[in-house]
């Protein structure tokens, strides 16, 4: 499926892996794909959503801390991310694989031959909680419907 991507292929996949490892996750999930969208050299996600990478990362960590608080664990300044070895490629969660399929559908809908960052972002914007990317979009206060409308031609 990756061969149908345009130049986004080069940065989306490596950025998503980087985000997963940065957080210490063993599997690449939809939230890492969403964070990867803010690595876009053309800044499509940043401009469409009005959010930068640091804000998105901070929101993801705040969700973790809030979830821990909800189960009675209160962290001080303790960071959450373990040092992660750059071993083999990470496996993708089923949700993340589904985003690729959705991206292909978005490309088809807009009659594009290639899958671009725009299609991946459109796919991610269809996700709702409990999906991790859906949770992150919600925490960032993104109006997904409006953002999608802005991305469609």
């Amino acid at each position, binding site marked *: 499926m990756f061969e149908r991507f345009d130049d986004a292929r080069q940065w989306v996949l490596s950025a998503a892996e980087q985000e997963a490892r940065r*957080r*210490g996750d063993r599997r690449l999930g939809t939230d890492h794909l969403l964070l990867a969208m803010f690595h876009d050299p053309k800044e499509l996600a940043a401009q469409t959503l009005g959010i930068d990478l640091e804000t998105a990362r901070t929101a993801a960590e705040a969700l973790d*801390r809030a979830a821990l608080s*909800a*189960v009675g664990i209160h962290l001080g300044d*303790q960071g959450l*991310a*373990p040092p992660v070895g750059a071993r083999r490629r990470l496996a993708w969660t089923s949700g993340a694989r589904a985003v690729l399929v959705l991206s292909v559908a978005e490309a088809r809908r807009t009659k594009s031959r290639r899958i671009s960052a725009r299609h991946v972002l459109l796919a991610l914007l269809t996700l709702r909680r409990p999906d*991790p990317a859906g949770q992150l979009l919600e925490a960032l206060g993104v109006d997904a419907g409006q953002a999608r409308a802005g991305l469609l031609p």
Partner: protein
Amino acid sequence: MVENELAASIRSDDPAVGLRAVGALQRLAEQVEARYVALARAQGWSWEQIGDALGVSRQSVHAKHGK
């Protein structure tokens, strides 16, 4: 969203919250483990002693943290 506001909107009876907390705890445990295994090695502990302290085998702790 402000963190306090976020915490107030998050409920402990939501499975998405509880399961997210489990993931965060696992990452936290990994982080604490890596830090203290390195410290133990620096202070001359054997892999066997570290494995015993963690309740796992010498082999598994070495495979995970040995270089």
